[in-house]
């Protein structure tokens, strides 16, 4: 078991509880949501309005998906050497009516995904150094649990 300190790769974008949420922005009194909270733009019906931080829905459906067969350039830090392709999904949140991009949990490839598939948010390792494990949000098929076995089953399906 790792004894490294678990820290967000970038502060303030997601919670670290058992059922993590992305931290979005919302205009007070208006259902206009943004992600990241303070970099996600504005609503011209309320220009310059104060934005409060709110947890966003932690499940949604795949809007689209792909992978990166080659290692992205810095500031991406590959977790593995040699690089293993990462899978990426854009997920539509029903309540917020917005699409949010993220890596897909380990073990899932593009062959396992389809537009419309239900996904849930997890927090997982982005990269590590000697002291810390740097965390990021990722998407995972809903109810898949953790570990390689489910992924293998999914591939067999």
């Amino acid at each position, binding site marked *: 078991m790792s004894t490294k300190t678990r820290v967000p*790769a*970038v*502060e303030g*974008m997601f919670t670290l509880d058992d059922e993590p949420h992305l931290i979005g922005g919302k*205009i007070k009194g*208006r*259902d*206009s*949501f*943004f*992600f*990241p909270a303070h*970099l*996600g*733009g*504005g*609503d*011209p*019906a309320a220009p310059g309005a104060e934005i409060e931080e709110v947890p966003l829905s932690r499940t949604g459906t795949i*809007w*689209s*998906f*792909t*992978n*990166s*067969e*080659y*290692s*992205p*350039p*810095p*500031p*991406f*830090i590959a977790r593995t050497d040699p690089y293993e392709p*990462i899978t*990426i999904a*854009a997920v539509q949140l029903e*309540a*917020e*009516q*917005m*699409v*949010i*991009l*993220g*890596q897909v949990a380990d073990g899932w490839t*593009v062959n396992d995904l*389809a*537009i419309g598939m239900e996904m849930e948010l997890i927090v997982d390792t*982005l990269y590590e150094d000697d002291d810390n494990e740097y965390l*990021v949000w990722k998407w995972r098929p809903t109810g898949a649990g953790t570990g390689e076995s489910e992924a293998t089953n999914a591939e067999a399906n």
Partner: protein
Amino acid sequence: MEDIAILGVGMHPWGKWGRNFVDYGVVAARNALEDAAIDYAEVGFVSGAITVRNGYPGYVAGSTFSRALGFTGAQVASSYAACASGATALSVARGQILSGACDVALVIGADTTPKGFLAPNEGKRPDDTDWLRFHLVGATNPVYFALHAQRRMSLYGATEEDFAAVKVKNARHAVSNPNARFTKEYDIDDVQASPMVSNPLRLLNICATSDGGAAMIVSSMEYAKAHGHADPVRVKGISLVTPTYPDTVLDLPYLATDSAASTPAPDLDFKSSIGASVYAEAGVGPDDVDVAEVYDLSSALELDWYEQLGFCAPGEAEGLLRDGVTTIGGRLPVNPSGGLGAFGEAVPAQAIAQVCELTWQLRGQAEGRQVEGAQVGITANQGLFGHGSSVLVAK
């Protein structure tokens, strides 16, 4: 909006030459001046498109090109709008001409680009969505192109062969284009044998980054008529619109779309609104268009543009492609130059290069790739951070 005249166009060929970007701009400007058959002293305004990859000289591109050509005391401006920078520079020039600030303007852009993926500026910058998308998600530009390609496959039944067929078509168009970087013909199998980059897009579906330069000499219609250009190609419309909130189509460099929970998504998505705006300004419609140069950052994105520019309904682009409508000889050839697939992207020059190609097409000078009888042409281009552009030209 009144028309302006395109008196001259010119390029430096696209490639991987590794020289100073200024050299390419100067060659393109000299070619455009020669094509316009006017003295440089006539140019009252230099409108430069900025490159952000070549240090300070790139940030003040208008001035840098002016100095390289020889300072004349002309007015100067520099514009940056990512891939739409060249069209922005053209729009600024049009404004100067139509306001009476000058009669003749030089619009110019050139770039020297690094090899491989385009990446954000260095340093830890969590307040920059361009940095965040690379660091946290590994979302390169091809990742976004692939998200759109995957949707075409899932929603419209597009196939990898369709995407390959776009590349095959455009490669054939480019074979005799002296300014194209890639002039080799490919067949479907070549494309399908190239390495997968971001599923379903392979290397030959994705445009490279290139060195290149493009320039235009534009003027008022009065100046054109008084100086021997009786029937010039005209700029009839320029669109530089932003998206309209909420922009619900995910695109680079963002991690998320706007939310449609408080305001319904607009009738037209961002890229469709770019085309709609230029048609409205020009007073023509998609049915009037004879030839188009669109931003095929990936071959699948070319298909999206058929729909976004109104050439067909959503889901029908593959039909146009398969029926040969968008091949030279068809009813509405797209990317007769070979497009980005054959050029590679030289960011500040690209939107200008699109208009150069249409100018040659409308004059009947596109040797080896001529769209016969073309009278109306449209460009379309996608930038970053809500930039995009379209230019409509006509004889």
